[in-house]
């Protein structure tokens, strides 16, 4: 290690003071090296605390609820407000953020032992395991401790620069990955929990909320994704009509004076996220509509917010972002002083 203060013993090159009582044993050297690395990591954490104003974790208990889509949307939406934003993809085994940010095939730039993130839409700085893989079909077959080492490197060795917000996207669940981040970063502003309205997703969201409470991290709130699919059309003004919903259920619709009508189909039930938030006494941040354009955008690397900045999804994201930023405020928290 070139920048280590620990001298390396070379058995082939005897020195004057070799074999004296002052020489550290290999075990002591290892301990000193570990202490040095620990100290370096702590200094890096301190720098992160100083350079990044707000750190937000995006969690969900269940997979497939659109967590990465929400994390990406939050990052782009914040960047659209002129803020400096970073997006850290902690999903080591299933990293999707680069694809959603139009950064497929990009590699990371490393200089002087520091990792430089790639730049996505809106100037969002992105770091992801995907940038280290030969191709997108390569699996990451790592056990927990190696994954944790990678996460700690993502936290400590990345040159983020000064950021207003760092959004951290996780794999589903409340295990190694979010625990490592919540333990490593001392001043996380809070957790955003993404859910869909159905009961099984809500059950898992409640676990995420309990997880946050256990680690004393504030819950910024619950986002209900895939909240409802809206169909629109035109018909005779001021008339009434019937639309066939799922399972052939009749839905009565009123046509307005301009001849426009719309009906929202609650594909995964309705309002579950809001009810869960109310029951668990955490804020409800907003509902994001079921929008096939979001799926297409994710696949094409152009988020719906970019493709249709005035669309329904972009507006819904704005509401969620407003709900989050209004909670962050600027007041300085008391940080623990250790003497």
């Amino acid at each position, binding site marked *: 290690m070139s920048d280590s203060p620990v001298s390396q013993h070379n058995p082939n090159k005897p020195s004057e003071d070799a074999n004296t009582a002052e020489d550290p044993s290999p075990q002591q050297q290892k301990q000193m090296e570990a202490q040095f690395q620990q100290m370096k990591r702590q200094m890096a954490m301190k720098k992160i605390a100083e350079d990044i104003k707000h750190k937000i974790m995006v969690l969900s208990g269940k997979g497939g609820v659109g967590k990465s889509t929400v994390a990406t949307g939050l990052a782009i939406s914040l960047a659209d407000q002129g803020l400096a934003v970073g997006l850290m993809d902690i999903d080591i085994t299933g990293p999707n953020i680069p694809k959603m940010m139009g950064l497929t095939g990009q590699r990371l730039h490393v200089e002087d032992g520091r990792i430089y993130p790639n730049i996505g839409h809106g100037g969002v700085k992105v770091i992801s395991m995907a940038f280290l893989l030969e191709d997108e079909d390569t699996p990451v077959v790592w056990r927990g401790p190696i994954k944790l080492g990678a996460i700690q490197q993502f936290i400590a060795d990345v040159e983020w620069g000064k950021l207003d917000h760092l959004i951290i996207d996780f794999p589903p669940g409340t295990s190694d990955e979010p625990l490592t981040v*919540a333990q490593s*970063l001392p001043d996380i502003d809070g957790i955003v929990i993404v859910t869909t309205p159905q009961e099984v997703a809500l059950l898992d969201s409640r676990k995420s909320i309990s997880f946050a409470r*256990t680690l*004393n*991290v504030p819950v910024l709130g619950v986002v209900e994704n895939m909240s409802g699919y809206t169909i629109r059309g035109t018909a005779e003004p001021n008339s009434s009509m019937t639309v066939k919903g799922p399972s052939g259920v009749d839905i009565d619709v009123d046509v307005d004076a301009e001849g426009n009508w719309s009906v929202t189909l609650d594909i995964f039930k309705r309002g579950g996220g809001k009810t869960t938030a109310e029951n668990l006494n955490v804020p409800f941040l907003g509902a994001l509509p079921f929008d096939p354009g979001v799926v297409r955008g994710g696949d094409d690397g152009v988020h719906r917010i970019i493709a249709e900045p005035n669309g329904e999804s972009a507006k819904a994201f704005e509401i969620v972002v407003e709900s989050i930023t209004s909670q962050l405020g600027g007041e300085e928290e*008391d940080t623990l002083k250790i003497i």
Partner: protein
Amino acid sequence: MTEIPKLIELERTEQTAILRWKDGTEHNISWNDIRFFCPCAKCSPNRDDEESALALRASVDSLTAERPGVIPIGRYALTFEWSQGCSSGIHRFERLWEIGEGIDPDHGKPYSHGAW
């Protein structure tokens, strides 16, 4: 989980930890008490019965007094690094508060792996 004020300052003396909390409370806890109540999976089971608890206390008391290094763990705990003895425990703020208040942080319950 016990509702406690925020820990705002930790002063380390040779023998004790002085913890200052946001509501003005100050606790002066001996390092040996903190070491005795180490919540790690190796130390905790030793407090489950009186005999092993006494042995744990004796082993902690036999260690040389020293001022430990401190590493904050997220927003909820601290770890202490000593040159000898166990440095593995993640000491939740609630536990430190309870030790300071003279409350058994284990609440008389035997160690259960993975329980918070």
